[in-house]
Every structure is written in structure tokens, then in C-alpha cells.
């Protein structure tokens, strides 16, 4: 077993152990961090590995969230089918948006994805008869079960989050070492050269967006499932910006950067808000300082300075 895989398994084991060691509050936070880290990992596949900076991933997160929540709320779907619907919904949305948006590059790509996401957000508001728009709705607690486990209990939530986080991490770990992932990195590093080497760059990017969008959708569905709420605010612009921050802070193009960045941001807000009301100010200053002094994010800088093998 190589070091990267060992590290991933070690992190997963440590997270499993953490539930029994940490006080209830921090274990609860960690469950949420793992769910949002799934989102950040999905985003990282497009941004960190393929070099596609999307500002519209909230659309995929929202597609997953509503895919699961609406099928539970209106059709009484049990967890597993609802989760599958969520994955299919987000994959389809990502396939369509990807096919269109990938005709553009750079800043135009950012704006096109942003606008698709904005259209999705407005759609969720408009069909309030189904979605309850900006208010959102509570998922039926009785349906939030899986294989006999109550996903609304502390342990059920934590280990469901851990399971999905672990699967995503191992999947990403496998992808970036597979020819597919190496091709994506080649595209990020030098797109014309990747084209010359015979890669079907457009097709690979499209696949990357689909996988990235589906993972983001998984995160959205998981959030609704574990925290019992779905609402349009999760499909709004700030939720497109969040994974970008998580990934850039943790380290773009590192497998564990999304987890580190997510945990850092959540605790930055949580701790500074207990010190002062001006926690947004603190968060802003920290963001500025980090970009100035840790340009490659935490793990990116660590990899560059000390641990070149870091996945």
C-alpha cells in the first residue's frame, strides 16, 4: 500500500475515532464539515485538477438537494431511491450545463456558470408551490432512515456523513491516479499540449464537470438528508463561492485540501463569532492574509515546502 492511500485510510480512521473522542458539539460540527467537504472535493475535481473555475456549483448542490428532498417530500421516496434520484438529477444538470458552458473559457466560463446557477436559483423560488422557495421545507423525519439506522440521530448522521465522505475521498484518490485524472491535470497544466498529445480535451473536461457536479449533488442531497432541511438559499450565489474558498484555503489540487479548508472556514466563523460580532471582518482579514502568505493553500504549501508526495 502506498503512502497516499495509507494517508487517506488513516484520515478516514481518525475521523471515525473522532466521534468517540470529541464532545458532542464538535462531533456535530465535524459531521457538517464532512458533508461540505464532499462538496468541496467535487468542486476541486473541476477547479483544482482540471483548471475549470466555475462560479455556479451551487446549481449542482441544489439539484442534488432538491432531487432528494422533493422526491422524499412529495412522493415519499425512501433514502436510497431518493439519493439515486439526486445523483441522476445533478449528473443530468451538470451534463447539460457542462456541454454548453465548456464552449467558453476563463472569465466567460465563470460568468456562464454563474448565470446558469442564478437561473436555477430563481426557478427554485418561482415554483414555491413545490419547493416553498426561500423559506424551504423540513424533510419528513420518518423517511430519514437507512438500513435501520436513524439518520437524524447524532451517531447515524455522523457515520452516514463519514461513509459518504470516505467513498468520495477514495474515489477522488483513485481518479487522480488513474489515466483520466492524469489527463485532467495535463489539461490544467497546458491545454494546447494536452490537445497535441491526442487527448480529446473537450470530452475529458465534460466528464470532469459531470463527475464534479454529481459529487456536489451528492453533498447537497446528504446535507438535506442529514440536517432535515432543503431551501433555495443553498442554491444561491454564496453557496457557489463557498467551495472555492474551501478549496483555495485548503489547497487546490490536493485530495485532502477540501477537508482542511472546510474545517478551517467553519471553525474560523464559529470561533470568531463567539469572540465578536464582527466575525465577518475577521474572516475577511484572514482570507486576505492567507492569499498573501499561503498562496497555494495550506496543504499546497505543505506539499511544496515539505511533503512532495502529498496526494
Amino acid at each position: 500500500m502506498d503512502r497516499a492511500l495509507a494517508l487517506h485510510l488513516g484520515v478516514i480512521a481518525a475521523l471515525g475515532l473522532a466521534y468517540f473522542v470529541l464532545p458532542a458539539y464538535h462531533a456535530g460540527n465535524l459531521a457538517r464539515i464532512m458533508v461540505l467537504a464532499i462538496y468541496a472535493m467535487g468542486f476541486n475535481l473541476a477547479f483544482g485538477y482540471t483548471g475549470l473555475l466555475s462560479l455556479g456549483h451551487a446549481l449542482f448542490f441544489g439539484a442534488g438537494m432538491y432531487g432528494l428532498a422533493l422526491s422524499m417530500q412529495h412522493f415519499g421516496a425512501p433514502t436510497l431511491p431518493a439519493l439515486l434520484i439526486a445523483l441522476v438529477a445533478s449528473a443530468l444538470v451538470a451534463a447539460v450545463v457542462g456541454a454548453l458552458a465548456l464552449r467558453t473559457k476563463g472569465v466567460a466560463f465563470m460568468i456562464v456558470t454563474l448565470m446558469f446557477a442564478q437561473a436555477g436559483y430563481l426557478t427554485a423560488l418561482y415554483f414555491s408551490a413545490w419547493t416553498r422557495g426561500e423559506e424551504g421545507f423540513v424533510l419528513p423525519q420518518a423517511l430519514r432512515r437507512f438500513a435501520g439506522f436513524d439518520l437524524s440521530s447524532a451517531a447515524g448522521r455522523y457515520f452516514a456523513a463519514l461513509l459518504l465522505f470516505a467513498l468520495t475521498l477514495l474515489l477522488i484518490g483513485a481518479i487522480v491516479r488513474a489515466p483520466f485524472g492524469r489527463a485532467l491535470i495535463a489539461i490544467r497544466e497546458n491545454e494546447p499540449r494536452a490537445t497535441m498529445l491526442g487527448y480529446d480535451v473537450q470530452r475529458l473536461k465534460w466528464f470532469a464537470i459531470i463527475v464534479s457536479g454529481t459529487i456536489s449533488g451528492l453533498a447537497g442531497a446528504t446535507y438535506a438528508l442529514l440536517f432535515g432541511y432543503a431551501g433555495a438559499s443553498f442554491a444561491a450565489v454564496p453557496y457557489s463561492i463557498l467551495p472555492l474558498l474551501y478549496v483555495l484555503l485548503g489547497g487546490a489540487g490536493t485530495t485532502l485540501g477540501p477537508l482542511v479548508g472546510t474545517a478551517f472556514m467553519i471553525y474560523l466563523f464559529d470561533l470568531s463569532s463567539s469572540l465578536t460580532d464582527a466575525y465577518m471582518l475577521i474572516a475577511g482579514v484572514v482570507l486576505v492574509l492567507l492569499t498573501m502568505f499561503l498562496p497555494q493553500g495550506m496543504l499546497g504549501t505543505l506539499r511544496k515546502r515539505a511533503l512532495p508526495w502529498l496526494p
Partner: protein
Amino acid sequence: MDFGPHLMLAILEGAVTAAILALTAMGLSVVFGVMRVVNVAHGEFYMLGAVIAWFVATTLGAHPALGFVAALILAPLLVGGLAAVADMLILQRIGYDPERTIVATIGMLYIIQQGTLMTFGPDARPVAPPFNSRIPLPWLEWAEGKLSFYYPWGLSITSYKLFVIAAAALILIALWLFMTRTRAGLVMRATQQDSAMAQAFGIPVGRVYALVFGLGAALAAMGAVLVVPIQQAHYLMGHDPLLLSFIVVIIGGLGSLPGTVIAAVLIGVSDGVISVFFSPTLAKITATLAVAMVLVFRPQGLLGKKAH
């Protein structure tokens, strides 16, 4: 209301939106054109302009026109100065790296928003317009075999809104003269075309960048001062102008100044006109998708050069 007057009203209202949008988007476009960075805090400079206008107007407390004129001078200066300082303190140090600039400007967005919340407070505050009278507008009608004027119900605009359109046009003409007829403008355009070459010719690129960043913010602040008697100052008001400015800048062709103006007019006016024909929210959704499609099939924008 009859169709004709309704359309006319929508076009006039759209023109006001377009005028403000053109100024705000022009700020973003100048910055992108010269520095090639995306400033996510642009909407916050706009918001600061509105908030400073409120402070100036209420502090002076004299005739609304005096406060307004003072705000129109002070707000862009202060906001532009702040932006230039932020550029030198932060953006220059990270070398205008595109991705890091986005995160740094998101950080600036948080700082400015929270700072305003703590000083200005969370309430929406209006500023009195320097003048404001309702002007009923006539419409032509073909009646009894001849053309005649009449004043349809509801068809009107205010003198202040007409002033906003004129003022925005004047500011944009002044900007164009500045960019094409002055030495400073020449230096900016030289830097835009090739910053390395400009540096080699002894142009202080760092100072030019700070100036450009300040100018971009000042344009946003001017747009905000003009709009604040129509709307009002609020600490979260920067969000929508940011998105719209982005769209305008891209549709117009990145860094193309005439393109930005054309796109602002197109988007502002069509926003007004669409509401005449369609159910508004569906129209917004469709229009958003339509603009995205324009970009998908013409990613260089309307007047942008083909990507190379």
C-alpha cells in the same frame, strides 16, 4: 395602459437602469482591461459610494442639491482612494494572480460589508434628490384622420431620472476623453496593451495599476451617488450590481469600453421591455439563460476580439 405608452415607459425606465449600469460596469471593465483581474469587491465600492453619499448629504444638511453635489465629488474620491490603497497593500503583493485576486477581493468584500454594518448600520437610508418633479409625457394618437397628442394615464418620468441618464452620458464621455486625449490615459492604454513593454519604457506600472483600480472603484461610486436618490443606501446593496456588471462586461467583450456601454444599454433596456411582454419572474429566468447562451455561442462578447 395601451401598448404603445407602456412600451415607451418600459424603455425609459430601462434607460435609467442602463445609465447606472454603464457607469458601474465601466469601472469593472477598465480594471479588467488594464489589469486582467476580476474584482469581486466591485459591488462593495458601489455600496460605499451610496453610503458616503448619505453621510455627506445628512452631515451637510443644507439644501439637498448642495449635499448631492458634494457627494458626487467626495464619494468617488474617497472610494477611489480606498481602492488604490487596497491595491497597493494587497493586490500588488500577490502579483495580480487571477485566482488569488478573487479570494483576496472576496476577503475585501467581507471587510467592507462588515465595516459598513458596524458604522452605518443595517437600515436602508434614503437621500433626497436635488430636484424631482413628475413630468407627464405625451403620446401620439391617430384619431379622426389626423395625428394628435394626448397624455396617457401613468406615462411619466421624473426630472431627476432624466438627469441621471444625462449625467451618466457626460461622465462616460469625460472618461473617454481622459483615456484617449490625456497622457495619463495614454499610459493606461499602453499598460493595457503590453505591461512588460510599458515597464521597459519607464512607465511606473505599479502606480498605473493603483490608479486604474481606484478609477474603477470611483466609477462605481459615481453610479451609486446617482442612484441613491432613486433607490437608497443599504449595506447589502452591492450584490446585484456586481452580478449585472459582470454580465455587461463579458457581453460587451472584456475590456472593450464601447462594448461595455452597448451591452449596458442592451441589458438595461431589454430588462425593462421584457417585463411588458412576459410574466416577470419567468422572463428574468429566460433572460438570464438567454444571456448565458449569447456567451456560449459568442464567448468573446459582442465587440470583443476573437480569442487567440
